[in-house]
């Protein structure tokens, strides 16, 4: 198997006359916690959408384990081990936490469509096994007591955790987190940092967008900074913090947040 590496090469995504992502290249190595940061509207989420198949970039290539994944559908990309969460949490609101996490088992389940009409011994066993996997995730994310609770009645911080648990149920190789700390208080953010470390210990590569600078500088191994869709810097957190272009992007313009 090819190395678990995500390589973006000259990715460009345009919306009409607006170039949201402009000739962007970066490489996420196996086992890294990789950060993409940038001021609001810099095109970070668009980059993630291009990686996960929600958008198809007009130019460039997105390679995963040596395979071109640009132009694949989201579920094909999930099948190759890349799973994401959303900046605005997208859970199946009326469904319970356990069912939400079970959705992550969909692609791993061996059931065919016709097992929905006539079950077999095999499909029953598969069903049981996947629910046990859900139980593992419930325990890993300390969500056991909420298993039967509909997610739209949970507080925001827990919803974030459920979303990450759902993504982890896929057993991904690369986990993409879109602003996982957004809307969390300090205590919850600390919990999140621990969770991300624990996820990495499982051998999962983590790619994240984040606004919380303290958190990004603490947990990431490597960073790419983008502004107006273009890469303005990359390097380790220490290198990036010292980079004048980054300082200017964050401090030199009046309307950016610096949480």
């Amino acid at each position: 198997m090819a190395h678990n590496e995500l390589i973006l090469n000259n990715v460009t995504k345009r919306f009409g006359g607006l170039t949201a992502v402009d000739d962007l290249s970066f490489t996420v190595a196996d086992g890294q916690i990789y950060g993409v940061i940038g001021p609001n509207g810099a095109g970070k989420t668009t980059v993630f959408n291009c990686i996960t198949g929600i958008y198809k970039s007009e130019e460039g290539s997105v390679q995963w384990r040596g395979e071109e994944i640009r132009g694949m559908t989201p579920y094909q990309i999930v099948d190759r081990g890349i799973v994401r969460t959303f900046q605005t949490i997208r859970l199946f609101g009326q469904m319970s936490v356990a069912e939400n996490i079970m959705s992550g088992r969909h692609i791993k389940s061996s059931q065919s469509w016709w097992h929905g009409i006539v079950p077999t011994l095999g499909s029953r066993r598969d069903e049981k096994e996947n629910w046990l996997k859900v139980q593992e995730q419930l325990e890993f994310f300390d969500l056991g007591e909420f298993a039967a609770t509909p997610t739209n009645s949970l507080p925001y911080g827990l919803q974030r955790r459920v979303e990450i648990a759902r993504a982890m149920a896929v057993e991904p190789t690369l986990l993409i987190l879109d602003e996982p700390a957004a809307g969390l208080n300090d205590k919850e953010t600390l919990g999140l940092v621990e969770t991300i470390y624990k996820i990495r210990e499982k051998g999962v590569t983590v790619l994240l967008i984040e606004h919380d600078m303290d958190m990004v500088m603490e947990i990431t191994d490597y960073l790419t900074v983008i502004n107006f869709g273009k890469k303005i810097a990359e390097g380790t957190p220490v290198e990036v913090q010292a980079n004048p272009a980054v300082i200017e992007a964050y401090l030199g313009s009046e309307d950016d947040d610096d949480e």
Partner: protein
Amino acid sequence: MKNFERYAFPIFFVVMAILPTLLDPRWQAVAITFLIFAVVALSQDIILGKAGMFNMGQALFFGMGAYITAILNSHYGWPILATIPLAVLLPALFGIVLAAPIVHLRGDYLLVVTIGFNIVFVQVLQNNLGGVTGGPNGIFGLDPLSFFGTQLTSQLAVYYFAFIVLLLTLWVMNNLEKSKAGRALHYLREDHLAAESIGINTRVYKIFAFGLGAGIAGLAGTVFATQYAAVSPEAFEFIVSVLFFSIVLVGGSSIPGVLLGVFVMFVLPEIFREFATWRYFVFGFAMILAMILRPRGIWPATFGKIPKFLIKETRHGA
């Protein structure tokens, strides 16, 4: 709610099993209608309730099953029961072929397209396509049920035929709830993008929902043709699709909700004859009220069951 399900379903089954022996022929006919329309409404629930697709052409699949049975029986002499495989498979295939190019449409567009299909279907029947549909009068004089050469001419036989079909439908729906495919329908209904992003090929499962819903409706069509020993185009008009659509919306996407809706729509008018002409009026108001007061239906969907071992006591104040 749990206790309700534990007791209500067995009671319902027992009552339905002994009911026809207590009824006179007229009420037996009403009860058969209830069973058949319950099956069609449940099939509509798979497409509209579970998968959330605005299909307003369910009478098409229902009618197709009925006509396949009628044509095979009257023109080719097939026994009624022998027509079942085709009366299920052909509507299911037709549902898949119809759905494939349209399932990506947004709800309102899908609605209009399915209405269109329904209207075209009735036109085709009325114009006697291929000389087999019998035109505006339809086809009549179908054989009664026969089982290994035994003629089952009584209405009781039709009742139990319909009852078995309903039980089969409920069994399939129960299996669906406990399967990957059934959950996929819930997921894509709740959040399409999130479902795709977690690895669900939503297109395949939408088409699956159409195929399954169409197949079950086709089976109900066979029972319908058996009950009246006849079929005619007006039974499958677009307005009938509207009824099934509203039953699922108003009742809520749950088995009790759908059964309740069918009861109100098709049985109450028989009990209160004077109510019959008013039913659209009353049901129209019920729809408006239900949509305002209970937007998820009178008896809302309870989603797929999660296994007991996952449910823990909530630690209060934790």
